[in-house]
């Protein structure tokens, strides 16, 4: 119940950002779109993807939706009425929900691989959007395109830190759910 409310809040916030999204690609791609995905993740939070068989097809669905919305031309299209509807429907339902349902079933190495890929791809996007001499989206100014490139890079750094810190330093001690450490590891 709590999650449903949060999901609705996220969706409402995304819709409230309609004007801002038209004005700035950072708002559009890095705030509104993730909020829509978040809405999908939250709405399906308590669902259980029951069968493991479905994990891979669901992941592939999510990946397809992700790659589709990463295309610069899709970002332009999302500002037309048809594209906007597609965006509001597909990001939660074809990306957020399948991601949430498949994630717990994925092998740890695959999860790590996906995370590493996200970092690399954000790097590529940052690389291209900050330096490409051509306009990538017709609907946005070149300066906004560069802002978006730097935002991709900043996001990559933040995500890298969030994902690396627990692996590097272990589960933080100040978090209550931390286990007793490795006292049982001895011979």
């Amino acid at each position, binding site marked *: 119940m709590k999650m449903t409310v949060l999901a609705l809040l996220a969706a409402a916030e995304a819709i409230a950002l309609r004007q801002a999204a038209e004005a700035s690609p950072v708002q559009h791609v890095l705030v509104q779109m993730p909020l829509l995905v978040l809405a999908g993740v939250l709405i399906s939070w308590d669902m259980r993807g029951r069968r493991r068989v479905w994990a891979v097809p669901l992941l592939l669905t999510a990946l397809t939706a992700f790659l589709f919305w990463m295309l610069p031309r899709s970002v332009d299209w999302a500002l037309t009425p048809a594209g906007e509807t597609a965006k509001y429907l597909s990001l939660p339902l074809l990306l957020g929900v399948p991601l949430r349902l498949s994630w717990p079933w994925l092998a*740890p*190495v695959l999860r*790590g*691989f996906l995370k*590493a*890929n996200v*970092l*690399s*791809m954000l*790097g*590529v996007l940052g*690389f*291209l959007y900050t*330096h*490409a*001499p*051509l306009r990538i989206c017709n609907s946005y100014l070149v300066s906004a395109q560069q802002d978006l490139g730097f935002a991709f890079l900043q996001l990559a750094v933040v995500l*890298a830190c969030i994902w690396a810190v627990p*692996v*590097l*330093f*272990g*589960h933080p001690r100040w978090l209550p759910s931390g286990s007793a*450490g*490795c006292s049982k*590891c*001895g*011979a």
Partner: protein
Amino acid sequence: MNTISENYVPGHAAAAPQAGAVKLTMVLSGAVFALMMVFGLLMRAAQGQWIDLDAALFYQLLTAHGAGMVGTAALSGAAIMWYFCGRHLVLSGGIFWAFLGLFLLGVVLILGAIFIGGYGGAWTFLFPLPALSGGAWEAGAAAAFMLGYTAIGVGFLLYYLELGRRIHARYGSLVRALGWNLILGREDNDPPPPAIVAAAAVTIFNSIGIILGAAVLVASLVHLLVPGFEVDALLAKNLIYFFGHVFINASIYMAVTAVYEILPEYTGKPWKSNRLFAIAWNAVLIFVMAVYWHHLLQDVVMPPWMLVVGQLVSYFSGIPLIAVTAFSTFLYVRGSRMTWDLASSLLVLSVAGWSVGSIPASIDGMISVNKVMHNTMWVPGHFHTYLLLGEVVMAFGFMAWLVRGKTISQMDGLDRAAFVTYLAGAAGFVTVFLFSGAASIPRRWAVHYEEWLAHDRIGTLFGGLVVLGTLVFVLRFAARLGRREG
């Protein structure tokens, strides 16, 4: 759970899961090393005008030699580290097979790109050379080459994810596996053994290298596909050298686990992690990532502080190598009454070659020296010292150790001859390179001037000895493997 590390029986591959996969990898590595050395020999002979090679073919061989050697050094290093981490961790065999499969897929793509597609843009694929070949190759060939790199990168990423995950599971955190408890003087009743410290450090810096390398690879691929998407040449160069430098260094730092784990069997003194050892490896972790700027010392538009860091770190990364790894080797060997068979001789030689090679490297890392040495033969001179006499020798030592029978307690005549031939050949070969560098001969030139031919011809002769020694090492390894299993 740590009984394996405490109680392994010297002389037996006691806990060697996936030994078959590792042996197969070493056979492949040995074969590719030999083939790439033949490519190198052909290039030296062509420069000496003993054989006639078309310039386009020369640069294709150059590309294959560079990419092939870096890749194979990393492959053999990865197999060695996997083998020894298997003594301390439970590792998934499936991941290793996936790693090996992706690696071979990458090799096929790269060889196809070079010898079918004609790609000859060097292993460094400096932007925008792959897209501007001047008619020598099509964009498709360059793209296939980069896809080959991508496949290899994915394979390595899986390898490190699995390793990192298992280290994390076993030690709770990577910093503990890096020996931070030892450094900070905290109590640790289960300190990480040297192989794990090395594995933790390499996992961290090479994962970062691969993630950044993938970014520049994909950006270059996008540029090949849609030429309008240009990237900044200097930024691309930074990323390429970061990735390339970290990757080739990782291969040595992975292979050195063979020294840590095998030499104790000969000396009878276990190689243990202590405070200094842990500090050295943590320094390496930082240094490896900060030193790549020494490749860019002549790119004067770089911020000066980066070039200064490049020079300083080039020198100071020699300290953990010489004062810790090399010095410890002296201590372990001294008075040990160890048996000098092929494996132990090669492993001690490898530490020597690696340390000695760091000297011309640090000297070239000085900006004022670099001005007259950069991209001369001095550069292959120094890196062949620590690869041909370092990483490759570690791999050959590991191979010799894998197949040494109980009966082989001393080197037999052929082993001894091969060892001497290889050592003499390699030492002569790299010394000629250094002399050539001091004589201002530029590197990567298909056609040499008359004044330089003497260098090339002497180098070719020494190179021939290296190939000879290598063939004996690799063929005997394969034969002994066959005898055991057959």
